[in-house]
């Protein structure tokens, strides 16, 4: 491509954090009017690079050229003024402020008295939300929105000012397919206005739908680009990211199914507010030993609530019966659930799965610390031994069991959460979006792990929003929509169409 099409250029960027070199002499070009996709494994440095481009990290080595001229941003506001906007990987919203207040945060419109001009701001917000097909009043508090809607607010925030460069760091990790469609439509129209997009995602399928070119990062280094998108395929992309081939067409091996290990019957979870509204509405299902049961649904279908409910988190509101090994059990709390042999890998590992400041070994022993007691006291040797076993078994990449878990990459953190539950020798494991935000390589490892667990006789329940994933790894798939079960398919009969039809109702 011609030189004048390069709108933004990063030259020889190096960024170090205490102990880690996140970016090592990285140079990339961003083309105008194109979707420039950055690919790389977890921890490759994608988000770090984006934060440098958008002024979040003002101290780095190397230089940024915008329209060929050197720029240096000391904060995100300056980058924004120069036309670079970003949607961050993590949601960055203020829960108790309205949508409008969030969208205008830091660039409010004031009247001649210096007072906030609510009317004008609400008006513009309304138009923006309409563009995103999001039908929520602009004065709604963000805390009252679903995660997907919050993600849309983030997108609207980035669209507010007419940016020349728009960075999207995993914008689709929490929105529904319909919302993804809207986003892609917007991206197309932005491209027509010569806006350049920097796009990051671990969902390889959608990349091919939207990308114009790929830039690969690996271990903080630029490893190459794919400019000719038409001739590239998934394997080329994976090679760019991982540096070798990976069998990406994972299909679960059949393993013999045993007895029924878990059954839920007539589970209801009323909304705390309304009387006749339910977050989980008359759901029944069962899992056998060695079986991987998938639960598919669009965002907000109530899958997380279902798992939480049977796991004892909402015992006061819940209605329904639970059987383990054919025996009826009463689950009044998470403690009961754990004692009865259940484990839950939550959707959001950083917030609900890990104590980030604690070392790996303490996180692994968290739910089963009894087994490392000696004479009633914790025994460090036993505890580290336990951790080492899982570090080897699950191939967790950590310099030592004493490493703080916050220093591990996403995939390895997820494996630590898995280890925590495996250490309790559970009978049934619930996995809520086990591969969200995880790179293709780690994903693969987790698929194999799930399959091995099933082989060893565990019952596994996987919630996922990714159709290909759920079709590849599950023996049976339940589909949920609007809080109830809307379909059930064996692996053989499942097709994308059938499942989607069931999910949409």
């Amino acid at each position, binding site marked *: 491509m011609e030189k004048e099409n390069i709108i933004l250029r990063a030259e020889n960027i190096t960024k170090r954090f205490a102990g880690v070199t996140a970016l090592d002499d990285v140079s990339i070009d961003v083309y105008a009017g194109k979707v420039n996709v950055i690919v790389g494994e977890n921890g490759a440095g994608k988000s770090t690079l984006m934060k440098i481009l958008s002024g*979040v990290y003002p101290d780095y080595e190397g230089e940024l050229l915008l329209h060929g001229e050197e720029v240096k941003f000391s*904060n*995100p*506001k*300056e980058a*924004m003024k120069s036309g670079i906007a970003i949607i*961050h990987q993590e*949601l*960055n*919203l*203020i*829960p*108790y*402020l309205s949508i409008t*207040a969030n969208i205008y*945060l*830091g660039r*409010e419109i*004031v009247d001649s008295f*210096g*007072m*906030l001009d609510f009317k004008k701001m609400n008006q513009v917000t309304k138009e923006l939300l309409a563009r995103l097909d999001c039908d929520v009043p602009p004065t709604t508090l963000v805390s009252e929105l679903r995660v997907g809607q919050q993600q849309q607010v983030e997108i609207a925030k980035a669209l507010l000012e007419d940016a020349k460069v728009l960075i999207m760091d995993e914008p689709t990790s929490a929105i529904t397919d319909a919302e993804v469609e809207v986003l892609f439509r917007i991206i197309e129209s932005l491209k027509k206005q010569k806006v350049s997009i920097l796009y990051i995602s671990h969902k390889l399928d959608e990349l091919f739908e939207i990308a114009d070119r790929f830039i690969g990062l690996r271990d903080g280094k630029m490893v190459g680009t794919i400019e000719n998108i038409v001739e590239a395929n998934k394997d080329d992309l994976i090679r760019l990211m991982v540096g070798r081939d990976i069998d990406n067409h994972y299909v679960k091996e059949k393993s013999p199914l045993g007895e029924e290990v878990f059954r839920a019957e007539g589970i209801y979870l009323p909304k*705390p507010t309304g009387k006749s509204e339910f977050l989980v509405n008359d759901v029944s299902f069962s899992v056998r030993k060695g079986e991987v049961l998938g639960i598919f649904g669009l965002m907000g279908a109530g899958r997380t609530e279902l798992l939480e409910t049977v796991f004892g988190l909402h015992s006061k509101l819940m209605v329904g019966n639970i059987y383990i090994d054919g025996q009826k059990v009463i689950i009044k709390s998470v403690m009961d659930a754990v004692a009865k042999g259940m484990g839950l890998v939550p959707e959001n590992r950083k917030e609900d799965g890990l104590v980030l400041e604690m070392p790996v070994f303490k996180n692994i022993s968290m739910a089963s610390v009894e087994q490392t007691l000696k004479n009633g006291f914790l025994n460090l040797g036993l505890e580290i031994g336990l951790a080492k076993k899982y570090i080897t078994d699950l191939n967790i990449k950590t310099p030592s069991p004493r490493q703080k878990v916050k220093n591990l990459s996403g995939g390895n953190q997820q494996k630590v959460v898995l280890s925590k539950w495996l250490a309790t020798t559970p009978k049934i494991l619930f996995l809520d979006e086990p591969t969200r935000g995880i790179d293709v390589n780690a994903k693969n490892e987790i698929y194999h792990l799930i399959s091995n667990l099933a082989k060893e006789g565990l019952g596994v329940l996987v919630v996922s929003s990714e159709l290909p994933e759920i079709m590849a790894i599950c023996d049976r798939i339940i589909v949920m929509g609007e809080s109830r079960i809307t379909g059930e398919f064996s692996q053989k009969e499942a097709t994308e169409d059938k499942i989607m039809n069931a999910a949409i109702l």
Partner: protein
Amino acid sequence: MNIKTTVIKFQSIIALFILCVVLALLSDKFLTPENGWNIMRQISINVCISVGMTLVILTRGIDLSVGSILAFSGAVAAGLLKYGIDIPSLNLYIGFTVFGAILGGILVGGGLGLFNGWMITRFKVPPFVATLAMLTIARGATMLWTGGFPITGLGEHFAFIGTGWFLGMPMPVWITIIVVAIAVIVTRSTKFGRYVYAIGGNESAARLSGLNINKIKIWVYALAGILAAVGGIILTSRLDSAQPNAGFSYELDSIAAVVIGGTSLSGGRGSIMGTVQGALIIGVLNSGLVLLNVSPFWQQIIKGFVILIAVILDRVNHPNED
């Protein structure tokens, strides 16, 4: 809006109303105009301080030093007014008008608040600790400045601030109403106010939106200091005397008013009007317990339980937040 949400929204007002009805039934002296002005005048200082405290708590901070700053600023204003600045060795003497002395007190209060904010933002000292240190430091400074003695005889002009009436309303009540009015406008309708909520709601998101977190926080603590100073000047004027021990444990009263008023200690949620209601509940309770001739020992116990009940009500109505 259905009945339930209305109840939730006005819960402090409702609590206040119930309290007033009960007291009016129990004592015929409660519902008199003088008693009304009394309560208003009594809470005026706590309201001034608590407005600043509300801002601080909205940013997820806390300010334990307000009582000490109040004492020091009051003493500074009184000292400047009475003695001026007199350094014989330099042959320096500066006299102060009432206005100048008040300004001096307020500047000192703002300065100490600034120091709090500086420690908290520049050195990342947790607000609890930074203001705990200031609590001690400002108390010591007050003792040094006054030599441990009250400064009295401040004149009629100065006394007017705390004891005078203007257009049928006591001066402290005027000052407080003005402070509250400004604070309501600032929190609701200015960028600064919005940023205060944003920082408390999610500091890292606020930073990524390009807000100058440090500057806003420093301002918030400086304002808390200034408002403590305003309280100190009202108090000194009411008593016609700057007491070295003034303001002792006011921080707890103030935090109680803020929390009873529904502002969350974890930041980002709350309002100035809520705080005013909280201070009113405490003031009405204080005055009511006295009117009902409750023993001072029991008063403490009852007040403790009222705080608990007020906050439990708030929790019941906002169960999902922490």
